[in-house]
C-alpha cells in the first residue's frame, strides 16, 4: 500500500480516488482486493457510482437546457475585451502626463493657494469685533474713547466717563491735548492716564 492510500482518511476518499482513476496500479490492485473480500465496501462503491452518475447527468442536462452563449462567439468577445484593456493600459500613462502638462500649468498651484488664503483672510476680517483698547481699571471708559472723538470735547468726554459733575480744568486740557495728538496722528491709539490725585477727591 502506497503513501497516498495510507493518507486517505475514509473509505469514501479511497473509493473516489479509485473511481476517478487517480490511483497508481499497485494501489488500484489493493483496492480491488479489498472490494472482492468486503461486501459492505462494494455496496458503498455502488452508492458512490450512482451518486456520481446522477450528479454528472444533472449537470449534463442543465448544459443541454441552458447552454449559455456560444463558446466561439464568447471567445471573440473575451479577446476584444482583453485587447481593449491592453490598449487602455498602454494609453493611460500618456494621457495622465498630458493632463498634468496642459491642464494644470505650474503657476496655477501658487495662484490657487494665494486666492484661497486671501479669501480666508477676508472672511476672518469681516467677522472681527472692533478693537477695544485696554485701560487701567480705574480709567476704563464705558465706551471706547475713539468713538467719542472728535464729537465730544474734553469736558464732555470727562463728564460722560468720570463720576464728577465738574471736571478739573487741567484734566480737560490733558484730554483735549490727547485728542489733538490723536487727530494729528502723533499717537495711534487713545490712552488716557489720569493722575491718581484726581480720584483722591472721591
Amino acid at each position, binding site marked *: 500500500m502506497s503513501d497516498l492510500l495510507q*493518507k*486517505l*482518511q*475514509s473509505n*469514501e*476518499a479511497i473509493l*473516489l*480516488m*479509485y*473511481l*476517478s*482513476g*487517480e490511483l497508481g496500479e499497485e494501489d488500484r490492485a489493493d483496492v480491488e482486493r479489498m472490494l472482492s473480500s468486503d461486501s459492505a465496501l462494494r455496496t458503498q462503491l455502488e452508492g*458512490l*457510482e*450512482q*451518486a*456520481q*452518475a*446522477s*450528479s*454528472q447527468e*444533472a*449537470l*449534463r*442536462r*442543465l*448544459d443541454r*437546457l*441552458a*447552454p*449559455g*452563449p456560444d*463558446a*466561439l462567439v*464568447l*471567445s471573440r*468577445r*473575451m*479577446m476584444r*475585451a*482583453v*485587447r481593449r*484593456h*491592453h490598449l487602455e493600459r498602454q494609453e493611460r500613462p500618456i494621457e495622465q502626463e498630458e493632463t498634468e502638462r496642459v491642464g494644470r500649468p505650474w503657476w496655477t498651484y501658487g495662484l490657487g493657494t494665494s486666492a484661497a488664503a486671501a479669501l480666508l483672510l477676508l472672511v476672518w476680517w469681516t467677522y472681527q469685533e472692533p478693537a477695544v483698547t485696554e485701560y487701567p481699571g480705574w480709567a476704563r471708559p464705558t465706551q471706547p474713547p475713539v468713538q467719542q472723538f472728535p464729537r465730544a470735547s474734553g469736558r464732555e468726554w470727562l463728564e460722560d466717563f468720570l463720576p464728577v459733575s465738574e471736571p478739573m480744568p487741567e484734566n480737560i486740557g490733558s484730554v483735549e491735548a490727547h485728542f489733538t495728538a490723536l487727530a494729528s496722528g502723533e499717537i495711534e491709539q487713545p490712552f488716557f492716564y489720569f493722575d491718581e490725585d484726581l480720584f483722591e477727591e472721591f
Partner: protein
Amino acid sequence: MTEMTLDASSRSGPIRPAEPNDPALVERVRDGDLEAGEELVRRYTGPLMRYLQRLVGSEHVAEELLQQTWVSALDNLDRFNAAAGGSAFKGWVFRIATNKANDHWRSSGRERQAKQGLRLVMAEHGPPAGQSLEMAEEQERLRWAIEQLPQSQREVLLLRYYGEMKFVEIAELLGCPLNTALGRMHKAMIKLKQLMEEHE
C-alpha cells in the same frame, strides 16, 4: 466503473493532436504573439464560462467574471510558471476564476446576491422562445438543486466536471488537503442525488 468525463464536443471543440500545448502557447504569448493568446482563450473559455455560470448562478455575472479572469490571467502571465506541466495553465486560470467568483460573492454580500439571483432568475431564466414549460421547469429544478449545495462543495463538483481536474489538482487549486476536497465531493454528489430524487 464509470469515470466522470467531459463531453468535449459540447464545449470549445475537440483539441486536435497537432495543436501546440499550453506551455508552448504561454511562451509565445510572452514573446508578444497575440494569436497564441487567442488560442488559449478559445481553448478554455467554454469550460470556464460554464463553471462560472453554475457557480454564481447568473449568466451576466459569469460573463463579467470570465472577462475579469482573462484580463487578469493575460496581465499576470509573467507570474505563471510554464514549466510546471501540461495542465498547469488550466489549473491556474480556473484558480483565477474561482478567486474572482469568491471576490464577487464577498463584495456583493449573500443577502443581496440572493435577491439579485432571484431577479436574474426571473429575467434570464424564464423559458426561452421555443422551450416548453416542462423543459423550463426542469432547467429551473436542476439549477435550484445545484444552488442548494454549499459554495465549497459546489466548487469541487464543478471543477471536477467542467475543469476535468484531478482531485489532487483541485485540492491544490483550493488550497485544502486532499481528504477535504474528496469529502466535499462526496457530500456534494450525495446531496445532489437526494435533491434530484426528492423533486422528481
